[in-house]
């Protein structure tokens, strides 16, 4: 295994009954990179993400995350990854600090350690003064930033972001990407799924998945050059359309 790759996926298949959600996936994610994982709804992104997070086992194939095998070491994988979803996963009825203490607690951090990180984190975000406010009273943008910081509380080596900017205004989205860059600077690997193709441009490399198959994987610049278009949006549309047409042809051939 290449020392530089933190996620390795080889010939990953995932089947639910007769339905194949992931077909022969092969990719590597390098340490410290921002990896965009794109695909339409139902393309199989979530299935792959669940496997990488240790929530679900592949039907076949080799998958290692942070150097651990997804069949054997899900426990160790879970300790080494952070996760943030579109819903931010904060408890609305708990205060900022209570949320932090809770999350630190489930990762087995000591109280003193949690409080030290909390102070650092909240001062950094500029919300130390309102740490006793309940989450429900915070604006969406703050919740998002807090959720991201929380996902990094236990110092994971990879962080999975599942459509992290859904429902947030463009300015806040831009600020959020600044946070992602800052995190990547410190060596954390970012694995992000998104619907926004402009965000795909921010990634170091992106993969595009259509119907359970990865149809493209490269840097945004390379992909745009390859398909001779100006934006990632066009790349995505071209790929998705091409794939759909092949399936249609296959069906008519049958």
């Amino acid at each position, binding site marked *: 295994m290449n020392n530089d790759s933190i996620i390795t996926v080889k010939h990953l298949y995932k089947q*639910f009954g007769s339905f194949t959600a992931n077909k022969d996936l092969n990719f590597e994610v390098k340490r410290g990179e921002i990896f965009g994982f794109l695909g339409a709804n139902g393309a199989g992104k979530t299935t792959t993400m*669940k496997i990488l*997070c*240790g*929530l*679900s086992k592949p039907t076949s194939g080799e998958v290692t995350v942070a150097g651990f095998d997804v069949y054997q070491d899900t*426990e160790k994988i*879970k*300790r080494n*990854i952070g*996760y*943030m*979803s*579109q*819903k*931010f*996963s*904060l*408890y*609305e*009825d*708990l205060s900022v600090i*209570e949320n932090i*203490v*809770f*999350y630190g*607690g*489930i*990762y*087995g951090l000591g109280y003193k350690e949690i409080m030290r990180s909390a102070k650092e984190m909240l001062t950094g975000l500029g919300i130390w003064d309102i740490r006793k406010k*309940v989450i429900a009273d915070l604006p969406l943008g703050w919740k998002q930033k807090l959720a991201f910081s929380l996902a990094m509380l236990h110092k994971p080596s990879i962080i*999975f972001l*599942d459509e992290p900017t859904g429902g947030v205004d463009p300015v806040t989205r831009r600020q959020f990407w600044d946070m992602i860059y800052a995190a990547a600077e410190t060596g954390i690997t970012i694995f992000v799924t998104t619907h926004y193709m402009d965000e795909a441009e921010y990634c170091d490399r992106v993969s595009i998945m259509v119907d359970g198959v990865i149809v493209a994987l490269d840097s945004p610049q390379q992909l745009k050059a390859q398909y001779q278009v100006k934006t990632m949006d066009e790349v995505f549309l071209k790929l998705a359309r091409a794939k759909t047409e092949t399936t249609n042809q296959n069906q008519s051939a049958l």
Partner: protein
Amino acid sequence: MKSFLGFVKKEFYHIFRDKRTILILFGIPIVQIMIFGYVVTNELKDMHIAFLDYSHDEVTHQITDKIISSEFYISDGLLENTDEIDAAFKRGKIHEVVVFESNFQEKLMKTGTAEIQIISDASDANTSSQLVSHTSAIILSYVNELNNDNSLPVKINTNTRMFYNESLKGVYLFVPGTIVLILMLISAIMTSISITREKEEGTMETLLVSPLRPTQIIFGKVMPYMVLALINAITILLLGYFVFGLPLQGSLLLLSLETFLFITLALALGILFSTIASSQLVAMFISMFGLLLPTLILSDFIFPIENMPKILQYFTLLIPPRWFLVILKSIMLKGAGFSYVWKETLILVIMTITLFIVSIRKFKSRLE
């Protein structure tokens, strides 16, 4: 372990910060026991009573007068024969009939004992039992008066018959019944709602990707409700004891252990429902219809099982509250020990284990 305790603490925050949850947890049990205690148990007033006097002597007339003079009763006069008793009850006008045997006074004076039969319409079990005990008390006080004057003590045997409901189901049953109902609802509804809430709000994903094991998550969610359900059980018992004078005949320890078992079972049911339900609302409805109605109707709480159609009777065997109610009644009302309730306990243990295995499996398979 530390992360587990943090989890439980968080769960308590949820409970104590939500006024509705607090209300459901503590308001409903108290209101319910009060309703069952005061409203369902009718007050004795204007109870129609009739007499069937085969003797017509001084003593029977005195007793009749004494009963009628009580503020509770309205006399509907005399009946002629036993056939009229049933007819009178069926017309629904009469609540109680007092029957004096023939040669009442003569027997009482010569042998020192005589028989009075009190027949009451026990289709309303609570009223009926109060009525009977009140009549018996009047008769007893009459006997006491007689014995004060007499040197030779006499005795009147009261022989009670409850028409339509011989075993008098329902008497004092409301306290055990309410305990069963409340424990079932609180434990199952609250756990299923709190788990589906995590799913709905997306926090469950975070818990699942964390190093917490699924079993830890489940027990962390369940633990606080177990504590609260136990507090509820104690509250109801105390209310029953102090407000309604319901004695606890059997062992408190045994009662506590059995209650603990039943709560565990109800919690397992709650987890199972949460794996089926997609939202809090659905969880609530499943719990309501899946639990409230069967508990009310099929557990022997309100409707006696032996009066049900055979098919329904077999069906009640599957209803956990039915078995727990037997245990509760035996311990609380009859003072029975473990040797009397071990069969029911065993059934509950098997049900609990099965439910836990099924619900944890289902919970885990939902992750896929």
